[in-house]
């Protein structure tokens, strides 16, 4: 019945769900959750948009070219969450923003763009979402073209990026854009950190949506995530110590 090697993963999954449910219940009862950490990349977004307004130049946003159902699709989805926040901020102060997307997220991106402007009272805003072919080369070149023709003052990139990231980041740097990037792909993380003024890596990309919402129930999920991380760190330290003294019991249990 159980797939071999996934019992410990199931146990951790159930623990995470139990903690989320318990903290969510506490949140519904009125308990306030205060996060001890902040995300500089998210906090810098209003500043970056303000810079674009001062310079009289537009903002460029991209959630990448990964398909929504692909291996990095969840990162693309989080990119859309952050994109809606960025677009609403731009709509609020009347700043121009253009999106560069590829593949099957195009209709969703268009809808989010339009809804973000409608939410701020701009019912007839022109949807500026550009569709480019998938593939690192064509998509990266499309982003470069958009940023160079519009002279974007701010370039915000959140998504599951591959080798198109350095192309886009260089395109942004050449037009002097203030760059904010977020990517959970471990192979691209060093480039995100090196190329952007502010960056979000690993699970920071996934907690951004909850932090932006300031919703107690969503924040409860982040607290649960931190508790699970602490559990895993304890297991790693315990496993290392036990292995060092020759006890393999914990490793055998986790292999089940």
């Amino acid at each position, binding site marked *: 019945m159980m797939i071999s090697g996934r019992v410990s993963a199931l146990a951790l*999954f159930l623990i995470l769900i139990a903690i*989320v449910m318990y903290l969510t219940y506490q949140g519904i009862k009125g308990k306030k959750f205060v996060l001890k950490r902040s995300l500089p990349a998210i906090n810098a977004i209003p500043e970056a948009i303000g810079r674009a307004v001062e310079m009289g130049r537009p903002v460029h946003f991209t959630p990448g070219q990964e398909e929504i159902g692909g291996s990095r699709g969840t990162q693309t989805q989080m990119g859309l969450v952050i994109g809606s926040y960025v677009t609403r901020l731009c709509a609020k102060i009347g700043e121009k923003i253009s999106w560069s997307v590829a593949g099957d997220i195009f209709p*969703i991106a268009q809808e989010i763009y339009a809804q973000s402007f409608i939410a701020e009272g701009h019912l007839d805003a022109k949807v500026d979402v550009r*569709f480019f072919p998938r593939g690192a080369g064509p998509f990266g070149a499309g982003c470069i073209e958009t940023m160079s023709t519009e002279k974007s003052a701010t370039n915000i990139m959140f998504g599951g990026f591959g080798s198109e990231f350095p192309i886009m980041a260089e395109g942004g740097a*050449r037009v002097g854009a203030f760059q904010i990037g977020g990517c959970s792909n471990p192979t691209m993380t060093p*480039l995100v950190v090196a190329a952007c003024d502010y960056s979000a890596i690993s699970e920071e990309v996934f907690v951004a949506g909850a932090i932006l919402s300031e919703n107690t129930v*969503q924040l409860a999920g982040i607290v649960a995530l931190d508790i699970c991380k602490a559990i895993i760190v304890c297991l790693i330290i315990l496993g290392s110590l036990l292995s060092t003294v020759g006890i393999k019991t914990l490793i055998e249990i986790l292999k089940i």
Partner: protein
Amino acid sequence: MATILKRDIPYVLILFFGVVMAITFFLKIPLLSEFAVEAQRLLVPISSAAFVVGGVSLLLYHAARVQRRTKDWQLSVVSIAVFFIFLVTSLAPGIEKIHTVAYTTIVGMVTEAMWGLIALFMVSMALRAFRVKNLETFLFTLSCVIVLIGNAPVGESAFPVAPPVLKWLMDIPTMAGMRAMTIGLGLGIIAYGIRVMWGYERAVIGEVRREAS
């Protein structure tokens, strides 16, 4: 009615498929596993429908450029022409060979040429990334230099210490960092999945939060 179609039904589907996929990941239930495989195949036609919307948008964008005679509008004429040439040759029966030849001789060549141009951007980006600004960028640059020397054929003879340092770098700090990020990534995806299934993350169906901005 619009709310039911645009919000409620998608959420019911997300919850249903989310639970089915989670169960089939942990448990071996033949019927559910077959259903999960079939459900994943549904992604192909759904994704294809999005390309139709993308194609229409592309045409409208370039048609507007041609109509307004904006800068380099002639390139938009080429884009529209190429779009229709490839559409017709790929759909019309009997002329598939024209499509294949056009693809390999035009698209293949253009793609190669574009990669050649983009390579300059990659090099420029690498130089920008290797610029030492603080301790983190110094460590990053130092690691990159060691990896370059360690992998270069001349590296071992010129710097005998480089290959063992490279091996240590790749096996210990890099591996530890990658595993930490992978664990964080996995937990982040689970937490995000729970938020989506409970209806707190709405962007995935194109809905924007109204309460906060």
